[in-house]
């Protein structure tokens, strides 16, 4: 088979798997698990094959036009370059792991068939985005992801948090998608094609008339999808979904799509310096803000969610300085270690019976109960904090090196201001990243207090994928030397200055946090916080759902716990109160958008109920009234009827006679 055929099969197989899973889900439950795993697994193998065949060489382009679509043609096009094949490998591998993990995580869930099918569909949509060489086809995958995220985040729809979160995820990403769509049309109008190759060729020839406008419109969609400030607020709330879904969204599919899209069309953005500066500021704010917010969160998954936002900020930063190789490098390595983090967090939540770090810090022996999760999570946290030689170090170095080069004027792809912004924010974020990583690790695994109850060994399907994903977490960074050839060709290896600088600040952040923890941990014993209990023997998904519900019930909010032993509280000081709520951005949006919309809805409701309905009801009432009047006539008295009948016929007869005479006389 040709590489093109193989590549076409990669998105197709999960799609068929999803269809099959939905079709047989009720009738033949035995087929659901194979139908969930096997197509994704095959797609992973094929994606690796495609990557090997492509080999980082020239981009492979293939296109077929199904039907003429007017002035701007829409093609079913594949565009396979180094970025596409590598991201596809990441997506399929993570999706396979998530599917495997889900078989155990949702083993007793009644809605597992539809869940697995949606995960497959999600994967398929992302692969479509990755491989597609046509922006309209890409948009199809983009929107399918949106709706899949809505369904998957709302998987526990019995809980109000999940319902609200799924709606929020859908609406916020849609808010970005509208300008995104307009941007795509503007782009196509300027360049005359939706094909990426043609667009890039047109940009290279300077055929873009409104580069800043188009770039800013597209950035809105990217910010929505990739959870960049100011449209990032859906991501922390999306933690109400099952943990494997979080892993999938954060590591491989949804959020990666935005970064990947910018990477694909970087020349379009690079054509406008203003857009790059905007992207840089967006990335900087995202990085620092999310780091502070992550330090304040109590829910282990929300910490990871904010860390994802921060890491996506790094990627945006790399794009802002015009180095898409670094961005995608970080995307892939982050995908690996963030998948490990989430999947391990799922294990932790199951074992501890809570998702609250404050509750975990009052348990001991969690590390002994779940050694697989402990070790892989430790490794992944080290990678997250960019400690050499783990993957995160190399990819983050690549970003910082690119920023440094831009700032110092060695690279001219982007304005120097963007470079400085990213460099400083990146270093600041490195401190915060190290800080919240250490806090997470200490609170989760170094707790003191009652022994964690034994729920038995975690299922093999859950622990094995952790180790599978731990391999790239540890080793992927070492490929930095050769990876540059797959991308744009410039080296991604770290430079000494930034390496020393960033590792130094990272160590400082980690040590300060450790110190704070040593200081505060004595308080933990004094303030007992009720561990959030759940059905320990149940399936992990149920434990998680219960933990989320009871977290709100116990602490009043999903994000915070009144825990004085939290080192984050000490470190952030007065900022903590604001960081917990994500710097009140939700409240701001509520005031700015939600309330006016609600008021407008009330107005419409009033108009409908009181004004429109009055006419409708009036029609009915008049008819009723007439009906009552007519009913009166039905007295049942035959004589009345006959009287009326005769009177009527008499009138008719007289009329007939009169008219006959009048006509005869005239």
């Amino acid at each position: 088979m040709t590489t093109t055929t193989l590549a076409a099969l990669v998105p197709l197989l999960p799609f068929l798997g999803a269809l099959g899973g939905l079709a047989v889900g009720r009738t033949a439950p035995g087929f659901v698990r194979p139908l969930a795993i096997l197509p994704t697994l095959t797609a992973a193998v094929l994606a690796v094959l495609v990557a090997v065949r492509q080999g980082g060489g020239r981009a492979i382009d293939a296109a077929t036009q199904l039907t003429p679509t007017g002035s701007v043609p829409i093609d079913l096009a594949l565009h396979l370059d180094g970025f596409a094949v590598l991201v596809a490998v990441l997506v399929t591998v993570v999706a396979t792991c998530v599917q495997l993990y889900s078989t155990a995580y949702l083993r007793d869930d009644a809605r597992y068939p539809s869940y697995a099918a949606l995960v497959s569909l999600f994967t398929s949509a992302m692969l479509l985005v990755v491989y597609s060489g046509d922006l309209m086809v890409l948009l199809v995958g983009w929107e399918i992801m949106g709706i899949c995220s809505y369904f998957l985040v709302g998987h526990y729809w019995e809980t109000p948090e999940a319902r609200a979160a799924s709606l929020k995820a859908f609406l916020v990403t849609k808010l970005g998608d509208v300008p995104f769509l307009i941007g795509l049309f503007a782009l196509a109008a300027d360049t005359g094609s939706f094909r990426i190759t043609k667009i890039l060729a047109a940009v290279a020839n300077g055929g873009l008339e409104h580069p800043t406008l188009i770039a800013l419109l597209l950035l809105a969609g990217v910010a929505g999808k990739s959870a960049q400030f100011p449209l990032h607020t859906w991501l922390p709330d999306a933690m109400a979904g099952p943990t494997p879904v979080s892993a999938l969204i954060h590591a491989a599919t949804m959020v990666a799509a935005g970064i990947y899209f910018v990477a694909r069309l970087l020349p379009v953005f690079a054509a406008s310096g203003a857009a790059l500066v905007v992207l840089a500021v967006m990335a900087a704010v995202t990085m620092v803000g999310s780091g502070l917010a992550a330090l304040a969160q109590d829910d282990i998954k929300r910490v990871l969610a904010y860390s994802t936002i921060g890491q996506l900020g790094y990627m945006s930063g790399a794009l802002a300085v015009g180095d898409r190789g670094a961005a995608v490098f970080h995307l892939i390595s982050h995908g690996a270690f963030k998948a490990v983090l989430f999947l391990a967090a799922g294990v932790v939540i199951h074992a501890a019976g809570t998702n609250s770090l404050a509750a975990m810090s009052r348990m001991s022996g969690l590390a002994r109960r779940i050694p697989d999760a402990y070790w892989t999570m430790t490794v992944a946290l080290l990678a997250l904090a960019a400690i050499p030689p783990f993957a995160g170090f190399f990819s983050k170095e690549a970003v910082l090196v690119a920023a440094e080069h831009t700032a110092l004027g060695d690279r001219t792809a982007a304005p120097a201001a963007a470079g400085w912004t990213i460099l400083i924010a990146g270093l600041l974020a490195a401190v915060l990243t190290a800080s919240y990583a250490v806090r997470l690790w200490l609170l989760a695994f170094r707790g003191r207090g009652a022994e964690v109850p034994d729920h038995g060994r975690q299922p093999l399907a859950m622990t094995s994928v952790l180790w599978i994903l731990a391999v790239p977490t540890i080793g992927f960074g070492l490929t930095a030397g050769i990876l540059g050839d797959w991308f744009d060709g410039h080296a991604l290896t770290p430079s000494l200055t930034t390496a020393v600088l960033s590792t130094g600040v990272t160590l400082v952040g980690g040590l300060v946090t450790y110190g704070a923890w040593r200081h505060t941990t004595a308080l933990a014993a004094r303030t007992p916080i009720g561990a959030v209990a759940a059905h320990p023997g149940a399936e992990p998904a149920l434990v998680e759902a219960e933990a989320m519900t009871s977290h709100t019930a116990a602490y009043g909010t999903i994000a915070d716990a009144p825990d004085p032993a939290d080192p984050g509280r000490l470190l952030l000081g007065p900022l903590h109160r604001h960081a917990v709520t994500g710097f009140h951005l939700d409240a701001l949006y509520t005031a700015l958008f939600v309330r006016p919309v609600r008021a407008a809805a009330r107005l419409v409701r009033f108009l409908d109920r009181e004004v429109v309905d009055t006419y409708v009801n009036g029609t009915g009432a008049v008819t009723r009234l007439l009906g009552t009047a007519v009913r009166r006539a039905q007295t049942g008295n035959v004589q009345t009827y006959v009287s009326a009948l005769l009177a009527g016929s008499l009138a008719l007869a007289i009329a007939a006679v009169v008219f006959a005479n009048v006509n005869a006389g005239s």
Partner: protein
Amino acid sequence: MLHTAPPLLTTAAGDHPGFLSPSGVEIAFLLVGLVTLGAAVITVTTRQLVHAALWLVVALGGLAVEYLLLTAEFIAWVQVLIYVGSIVVLLLFGLMLTRAPIGRSPDADSGNRWVALGVALASAAALVWVVVDAFRTTWIDLDGPAQGSTAVTGAFLFRNWVLPFEALSVLLLAALVGAIVLSRKRDTDTSTGRDTSTGRDTSTSTRTGATRRSGPTGTPGKEEQR
């Protein structure tokens, strides 16, 4: 043109007298007609139900006389025989069987009477207007052989109208059967072997509460009038 009708005495055809010089037959017809009409009006307005039937006899008898004056003598005798002889008797039986009150009953007319009066007067006005306008100059020539003598009637009835006549007998038979079926008691009552004509009142009064309430001596019309 109707309301500007010329005076009745001016006749279009001058070969027969006008209304102001009536012949003897016409005077007789007019007088008997007045009697008939008066009897009919009393029939439909009297409060004594049995009197109504008797006034009906007068009206029908008057009509028989009118037939005679129109030289339709066979029909006049048939009128007397069938109407006065049987139908009025049948009606009287019906009145008795339904316990019609003897004497004045104030509720003989329903609440519909004013509407009825209006409709009747209006239709009377319309009909008389049309009829007078159409036939004020038409003259019936009553001279010559009687047109409704028994011989003539027998001739045309059994020469020209024999088939409808026989069909009419089937109709009468059907009416006979229908009347019997309608007025027959239920099978359970007939199986007891009682005479239907004598057992009717007692059996109905024991079967339906309404009849029992009206009682054997009561007058249902009065009692149910609140």
